[in-house]
């Protein structure tokens, strides 16, 4: 198991190397020179040249890449072209917001998705099944941006139930701390602020959960249907076990592997920054920041974000694989299975 884990970790290296080369080439070779916009209204050709020189953009592309990777290996993703601030710090400052939102969203998506998936499978071809599957189809197809705006207009604009954006009312924000507002507000016992943060997270979390929930529902349904047709389920029913016991103890546990895979991958994608959701709800995470940086061609930040996203995805894949062993005793990770 340990050997498998180490080998899988080592496999990260070529994946991240390939991603780093790809994103570097796209940013530095195929993208426009950002000098004239970095320097703003008072840019000049002379100033642009001085800036390129200062940022090392006149070096051969290989040298630029090696310098960049040397920094990355030391935890330094360079500095933002526009703010001169270290990219690592800028991303770390926004990471808690993204993680907090992703965790809430995946909890909502998993609970609701699994619940509706099971109901759908058990009541196959019933009105409930058709309704759930149609809703899931809408969930998959509906643009996040549109859903977010719809929820804001409805629940914030018309009903005034929740705020339209942000993470917490400004003066309730906990000072210092971890940056995870739910945790920080609970730690200091400021329950008013905790519920305020919860209200703020409601709409973005539901918006973000929408797509994942639909995917998880469909996967749960299809996986459950496969299992429900197995002989051992028929045997279990023949033994006179109660319906819920057959569904949850025999069928669901065996249907869990693909569901876990989907949840893991969805969580990876949510963690990597919900670009549109964060922008619509003014949620100050990595996703909204990426949009801002893409719009103004702030390449070092975009490179940093892409590398982190790739890293998160690969790690999530690994964790999902490791979970298999915990869930299914037949799965053993030996040297041969690598």
């Amino acid at each position, binding site marked *: 198991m340990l050997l498998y884990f180490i080998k899988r970790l080592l496999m990260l290296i070529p994946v991240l190397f390939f991603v780093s080369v790809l994103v570097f080439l796209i940013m530095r070779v195929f*993208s*426009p*020179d*950002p000098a*004239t*916009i*970095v*320097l*703003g*209204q*008072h*840019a*000049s*050709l*002379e*100033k*642009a040249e*001085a*800036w390129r020189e*200062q940022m090392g953009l006149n070096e051969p592309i290989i040298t630029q890449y090696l310098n960049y990777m040397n920094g990355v290996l030391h935890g330094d993703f360079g500095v933002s072209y*526009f*703010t*001169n*601030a270290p990219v690592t710090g*800028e991303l770390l*400052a926004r990471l808690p917001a993204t993680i907090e939102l992703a965790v809430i969203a995946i909890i909502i998506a998993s609970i609701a998705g699994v619940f509706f998936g099971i109901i759908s499978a058990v009541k196959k071809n019933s009105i409930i099944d058709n309704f759930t599957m149609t809703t899931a189809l809408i969930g998959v197809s509906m643009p996040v941006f549109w859903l977010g*705006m719809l929820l*804001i*207009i409805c629940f*914030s*604009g018309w009903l005034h139930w929740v*705020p*339209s*954006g*942000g*993470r917490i009312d*400004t*003066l*309730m*924000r*906990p*000072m*210092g*701390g*971890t940056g995870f507002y739910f945790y*920080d507000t609970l*730690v*200091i016992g*400021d329950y008013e602020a905790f519920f305020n943060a919860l209200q703020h997270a409601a709409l973005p979390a539901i918006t973000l959960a929408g797509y994942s929930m639909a995917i998880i529902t469909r996967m749960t349904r299809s996986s459950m249907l496969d299992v429900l047709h197995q002989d051992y389920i028929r045997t279990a029913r023949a033994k006179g076990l109660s319906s819920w016991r057959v569904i949850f103890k025999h069928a669901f546990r065996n249907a869990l592997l693909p569901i876990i895979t989907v949840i893991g991958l969805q969580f990876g994608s949510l963690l990597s920054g919900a670009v549109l959701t964060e*922008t*619509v709800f*003014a949620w*100050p*995470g990595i996703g*909204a*920041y990426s949009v*801002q940086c893409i*719009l*103004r*061609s702030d390449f070092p930040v975009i490179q940093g974000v892409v590398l982190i996203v790739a890293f998160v995805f690969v790690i999530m894949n690994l964790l999902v694989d490791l979970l298999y062993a915990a869930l299914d005793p037949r799965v053993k990770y030996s040297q041969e299975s690598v």
Partner: protein
Amino acid sequence: MNFSKTKLFAAALAAVFAVTAATEASAALSRKPQDNLIFASTNDPLGLDPALVDDNDSGKINCNIYESLLAFEPDSTNIKPSLAESYTVSDDGLTYTFKLRQGVKFHDGTPFNAEAVKFNIVRQMPENMIPKMSYASFVWGDVAEVKVIDDYTVAITLKRRNTPFLHNIAMMYAAPMISPKALQEYGNNVMEHPCGTGPYKFVAWDKGQQVILTRNEDYWGEPGRTANLIFRTMPETSARVVALNNGEVDIINGIDANVIPEIKQAGNQIFSAEGMSTHYMFFNVNPAQDSVTKDKAVRRAIAKAINIPEMVQSLYKGYDTPATTILPKAIPGYSDKVKPVAYDPEAAKKELAELGVKHLTIYTYSGARIYNTVGGQVLAEAIQAYLKAAGVESDVMVFDWATYKNKIITDTFDIGFMGWNGDNGDADNFLGLFASDDQINNNGLWFNQEYRDLLAEALTMPDGAERNAMYEKAEMIIAEETALLPLSHPQILGAMRPNIENFAIHPIGLTFMHDVVKH
């Protein structure tokens, strides 16, 4: 094994306690609504060091933290004393001697004096300047020497006469005074540790979320009227409008004509004022390229084909003013005697046919700009339609902003679009662009020796009628040569709750919040 697990658990517990101890509620700031003025805008500021930024999102916050030697009047770019109580100019127009206000302190307690002024200027002189200081050469580029006469007197000598100098040092980019102690402490970069002398001081910047300022109780003048200022970042216009209508925020900017009815319907107020920016179409006259617009007759015929007032009304729904000259009305030197080429579609059609112009290439950008809220593509397509009516087909090539800025330097095309946001209320700030050999500023590379001589002479002349007449003449040359086509002067738009008093956006786009009250 057990021992290491215990140690690990103890370490984790210690870390949790350390974090817990460092966390506190924002109790230091009042939670009373009337003490907190919340201003929502599109972007996070780039930073809070006025020497290192050039964006309005930073400027509108910085103007409440920092002050310059001089300041602009609340509704114009006329200058008034600020950190300098008075000044004299030597007979040769080269040396400016400033008497500084006494008893002023930076927010960190450092006294403001002549040494602090010198420190701030020397920081941005060519030998110390870094490329990101994009306004340093504009504001301080002509400075030859800064001399401390005594604690509260400083003399600045220029290399050449530069009439806009006094306006430049009233600006919120490069000109504001920063605590020398803070600059030394934070490695010559106070982007995240701003420290000025202004009526509000910095509390916190939650990246991507908000910047919080609180009243400077030791301010040398009347203290700010609201206790706390909160500048929130909300990228989506619709979300900002909902937040305003709900009362979650008090003021918003970055709105366009489409959302105004909804805002008014909710009982909120609209703020609109003549801005200080210009939006124009330029022709490619680069001598090294093969473009039909190098021919003045072609440019004039194209100008005749475009009904600018009609187009501006249709695109901006009355919230932009059709332009007749590059200078906005509020700038000294503006003249209504300057007449652009009149709209005459029949003449345009005839002349373009005679000149053999059948096809043009239009380059434009994809998104909206401050001076063009409908975006470059919509604008280019409007121009394309006018050209088609005049019998000329055209291709509209749309690029993202960064690509566009590069393409108009490297490619051959006929027509492009650009805009300029006034910095200091001086005519040279606008017209000087087209006297440059730098293609980033003079995009079409138009060249006219008479125009350049006029601009060079006017730059060194004292303010007044004679100088204004020279700019009027320069504008007439632009109109006659049809080097470019002024399109519009955008209005500045904002919206606020009905309980907000005294809020205004300055013509150069800054928001001084000192007198704003929330009832």
